[in-house]
């Protein structure tokens, strides 16, 4: 108990030292296991509003597992158990009275591979979250569609073919379409799981710029294998290793003066 208090105290001090932005999302002793395999153990960290938080670490270190625990995405998979707490604005999203659907409306997610709904047009893809919930007002939907596509820096490229299938766009456009679709429901937090790893350098650059722009409005958490990318776009970086959070600091400090030897080994390319 005392340890916990002390730990929280240090966290608070770190916060005042590095960050002035309010905490949007906080995990306390978050663990995830797949059957008998532990994917993540005892991660406590705070994610700030209007900041980009990068999660780095070697393959299988638990960073994607952590990300997916933040919007209860694990619930689709068999045999996954999550323990600990995830607080969104101080309220546990794993609480008994909380509807996971409502959680995911506030915490959006973009995946590694673009996932447009194959049978829907570009327009229907963007507004799917609203339209399929029963929003029928066409004018409202097309306003939202345009706004989301502009936010995702895609509007000018697709404005003349909003009715063609989402799958007809290029890979990079499809990924921005996926981002627009996530933004259309106006979430508060945006989780991104290696959103540029399947894209060419120019598309990746566009998405990085997009993320930097979006961080004025959203708390963004991004998993990346690319340290340069973390350096370019993130304010804070968390290093995961063997299912544990090893180090969490401002990105510039972390990448120039890591305090843990494992972090140093990773960012200098000794493993991973």
């Amino acid at each position: 108990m005392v340890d916990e208090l002390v730990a929280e105290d240090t966290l608070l001090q770190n916060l005042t030292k590095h960050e002035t932005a309010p905490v949007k999302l906080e995990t306390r002793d978050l663990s995830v296991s797949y059957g008998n395999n532990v994917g993540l153990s005892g991660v406590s960290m705070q994610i700030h509003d209007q900041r980009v938080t990068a999660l780095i670490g070697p393959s299988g270190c638990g960073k994607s597992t952590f990300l997916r625990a933040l919007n209860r995405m694990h619930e689709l998979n068999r045999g996954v158990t999550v323990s600990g707490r995830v607080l969104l604005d101080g309220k546990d999203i794993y609480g008994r009275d909380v509807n996971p659907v409502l959680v995911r409306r506030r915490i959006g997610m973009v995946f590694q591979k673009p996932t447009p709904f194959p049978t829907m047009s570009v327009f229907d893809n963007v507004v799917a979250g609203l339209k399929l919930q029963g929003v029928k007002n066409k004018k409202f939907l097309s306003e939202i569609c345009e706004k989301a596509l502009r936010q995702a820096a895609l509007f000018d490229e697709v404005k003349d073919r909003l009715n063609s299938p989402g799958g007809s766009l290029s890979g990079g456009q499809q990924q921005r379409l996926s981002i627009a679709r996530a933004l259309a429901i106006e979430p508060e937090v945006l989780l991104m799981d290696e959103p540029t790893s399947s894209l060419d350098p120019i598309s990746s650059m566009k998405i990085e710029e997009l993320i930097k722009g979006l961080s004025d409005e959203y708390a963004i958490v991004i998993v990346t294998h690319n340290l340069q990318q973390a350096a370019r776009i993130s304010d804070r970086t968390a290093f995961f290793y063997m299912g544990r959070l090893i180090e969490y600091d401002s990105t510039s400090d972390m990448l120039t003066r890591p305090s843990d030897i494992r972090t140093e080994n990773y960012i200098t390319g000794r493993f991973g």
Partner: protein
Amino acid sequence: MKGHDEMINEMRKIEEKAFIWRQIRSSAMFVVVTLSTMLVIAPLVIMIGYVIVNGLGAIDADFFTGELGSPARAMAGKETGLGHTMIGTFVVDTLALIISAPIGVAAGILLSEYPAHRLNPLLRVMNDTLNGMPAIMKGLLAFALIVRPMGTFSGLSGSVALAIVMIPIAARSAESALSNVPWAIREAGLAIGLPRWRVIMSAVMPAAKNGLVTGFLLAFARAAGEAAPLMFTSFGSNYLPDHWMGFILSPVDTLPQRLYALAVSPYKEWHTMGWGAALVLMVFVAGLFILARILTNKKLQNA
């Protein structure tokens, strides 16, 4: 060095011998494989040819509209019409599809979308067992469930019997059509705050549409050829009903069961007619299979 050259020569000879043997083995296997393939195709080709040769002679205007099923007419050497039989087949089979499709899809959704569900393993075993049950027992079940309480043979009971034939096939094909849709689509749907059922209905099922339709067509084609479940359910009828409801509430003629009745009859004319019925049934079922193939190919092109 002489010894070395001899050795090389020796090896060459061995290799040449082995080469000839390889060629002989290869040609022998080729013949075996070709013959086996022909044995697989032969029954189909012979069956289709035989039915066409014997059936075409039976088909004329009288075949469809002649006075129905009158033994006096048959003994006078005149044929009787099967128009009402074709309509009856279509009505009974379609109603069976309407009954079985939603149940099959529902089971397919449980099998594919909720792999962790407690009922899933049980459902899978039961479904496969039901599929393996003799079709005539499904007719008996429909007899007990529908014919006894109604007090009469009926098209409806035939549809129920055929629906029981279709359900396991529809469920399995719905399962495979749905699980062919990438898992990422489901996660993408959940990630934009849609409930699970909404994701299944609006994102997964439309993506699996061609596969679902193909599965129903195959189930439909399979059931369309079943005679056994209809013997004591839709029973057969010699007359076109006065009212369309007659196709559902009273005994109805269907092609497979009429084909059987004609084949075991003592009249030569009826045998000819049976060949005609076989031809019509074959064209109907083959048409469904071809349609299913076209839809499947379309799906492959889209993917």
